[in-house]
């Protein structure tokens, strides 16, 4: 089409500007889609709504133990898809006082004939309680390698916060153990890093 090229020149110019704005919008929204991932992480960390229990807890001052109140903490264990390990808590539930530091153990055994690496991912219910459940030491902070046939008792030290809302009398901590393959695999060890960082 060759009509009126003279008149169209100013329009062409502004077309370029519109395209420029639109494309920067497209690029910005594409980036925003990916930015939702860390935003979501931060949002969940602040509110505790996805049941992830946060990283290693470092108390600023030791909490006073509230002897008048007792909270039941239950422990669950399950295996992720394809995971063949035996995995269970040594005790199913404990009674704790808020503020008290408690140690419990999970038992894991690799019954296969090859070395494997496992990663436990915690989840707490009700999610309202996640902000008040502190882990000072947890096997879920690290990957757990096990030789063929080897077994291990993995410790968890936690404190239930004194500020736990009154109506919560029972917390359920559930661990899912995922197969991270053999230690030698490079891509898996990269993944291990992200796992440890994000799952506390």
């Amino acid at each position: 089409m060759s009509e009126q090229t003279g008149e169209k020149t100013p329009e062409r110019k502004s077309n370029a500007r519109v395209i420029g704005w639109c494309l920067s919008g497209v690029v910005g929204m594409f980036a925003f889609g990916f930015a939702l991932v860390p935003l979501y992480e931060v949002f969940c960390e602040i509110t505790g709504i996805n049941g992830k229990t946060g990283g290693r807890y470092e108390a600023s001052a030791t909490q006073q133990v509230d002897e008048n109140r007792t909270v039941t903490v239950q422990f669950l264990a399950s295996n992720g898809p394809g995971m063949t390990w035996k995995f269970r808590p040594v005790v199913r539930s404990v009674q704790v006082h808020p503020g008290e530091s408690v140690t419990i153990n999970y038992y894991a055994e690799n019954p296969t004939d090859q070395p494997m690496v496992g990663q436990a991912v915690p989840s707490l219910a009700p999610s309202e309680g996640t902000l008040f459940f502190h882990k000072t030491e947890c096997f879920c902070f690290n990957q757990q390698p096990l030789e063929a046939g080897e077994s291990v008792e993995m410790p968890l030290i936690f404190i239930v916060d004194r500020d736990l809302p009154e109506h919560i009398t029972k917390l359920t901590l559930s661990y899912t153990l995922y197969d991270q393959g053999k230690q030698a695999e490079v891509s898996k060890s990269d993944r291990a890093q992200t796992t440890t960082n994000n799952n506390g």
Partner: protein
Amino acid sequence: MSAVADTHTQDHHHGPAKGISRWLLTTNHKDIGSMYLIFSFAMFLLGGSMAMVIRAELFQPGLQIVEPEFFNQMTTMHGLIMVFGAVMPAFVGLANWMLPLMVGAPDMALPRMNNWSFWLLPCAFLILVSTLFMQGGAPDFGWTFYAPLSTTYGPPSTTFFIFAVHIMGVSSIMGAINVIATILNMRAPGMTLMKMPLFVWTWLITAFLLIAVMPVLAGVVTMMLMDIHFGTSFFDASGGGDPVLFQHVFWFFGHPEVYIMILPAFGAISHIVSAFSRKPLFGYASMVYAVGAIAIMSFMVWAHHMFTVGMPLAGQLFFMYATMLIAVPTGVKVFNWVTTMFRGSLSFEAPMLFSVAFIILFTIGGFSGLMLAIAPADFQYHDTYFVVAHFHYVLVPGAIFGIFASAYFWLPKWTGHMYDETLAKTHFWLSFIGMNLAFFPMHFLGLAGMPRRIPDYALQFTDFNMISSIGAFMFGATQLLFLFIVVKCVKGGKKAPAKPWDGAEGLEWTVPSPAPYHTFSTPPEVK
């Protein structure tokens, strides 16, 4: 609005090129608009035939016709094809045909990109449909492709699905940029923003929505691709990701997407209701503001699709009230349409019939949407046939009836012939009855607890499912009549005048019918 159209023959009059290269290489908005419309109708029939498979299987309880795996592929492909292949391209086709005519421009602002954005679509859908013939079958995780169904458990063809979504996303984004550039830069002198026809307004806002959310869709499928092939864990809990994150990102795209599929219909219906009431549209400015308000609010309600994931109470309340707030601008629009008809000299040609049905049935779909928006009640309705009934009530008599109404309204302009009014009215009534028979019983099924996306059901659901299937077959078969009506209208019929509807207003009616290959080479003056 009055305008002077310069349509006299020029010294070097260009007709269309001959043969296949006319269609492959064309940069003419009318050709590209026609191709979009033909393509979307082909996809409508393809997606519709998949719905027929679904309804045939659900005609009786038990597994009769297809395997459950194939049933899942049918529900998935039906949804994907109807959303991305039928409804969206149909509106882009209408935009291509009508926007330049409505704003008095000679063509779209970026005609070569226009050609490209159309021809990407058949490529995308060739890839998508070819997954049906691949090892492991087509995608079977529902059109919402929730992780981990689509990542950990998806068939191998998921990668092709992702690629197809990328291509159609690029096509939509280019189409949207073209629409924005055309509307902002190519309006006839004197056509200020608040003098633009409503179809132009609604498409401008739709284009902004497309630019805002199609990249998010591209992002979410890219994350899926990386989870499947490159060892990342965006949605994989074992690697520190979160499957619920998928739903948040998906619906951040998905909710504005439902308005992308309805806003252009709002615009077209506004023209048609006004034309057949022989009255100017009531409340033009409020219509514009209502569409803008709906578009902005559509970004703040996405989580009402996922009340059951375990949100805190504050989140549920926020999304519940925000969702209900959208009923206010939507109510303004319905009020304005009804008030436009009030005391008008109404006549009920096919476009008006489809428009009136649109207003009534879309409102019913809106009300069931309000029911779903009530967070405590949603736990009962979630993933049942009530949801299926709801979104089919807003998409079939909403988007699809809007497209039919637009097609009949502008067919005389496109073809130069009047369509067969008797056949068109038959098409309307059969569609109307078929559609209500198909989708109304689904409300009851859903309230009684029948889950969606399941090929079998409990015996007590049999009667409603049979009625629903009969209605669906009726609605499906009726669409072949539409094809016949359009072909008949293209081939011949009563000669259409430049303005076949006496109440119609706008620049598109100032050019002869059929619209010449090149229009508004000299911009008209809008007063």
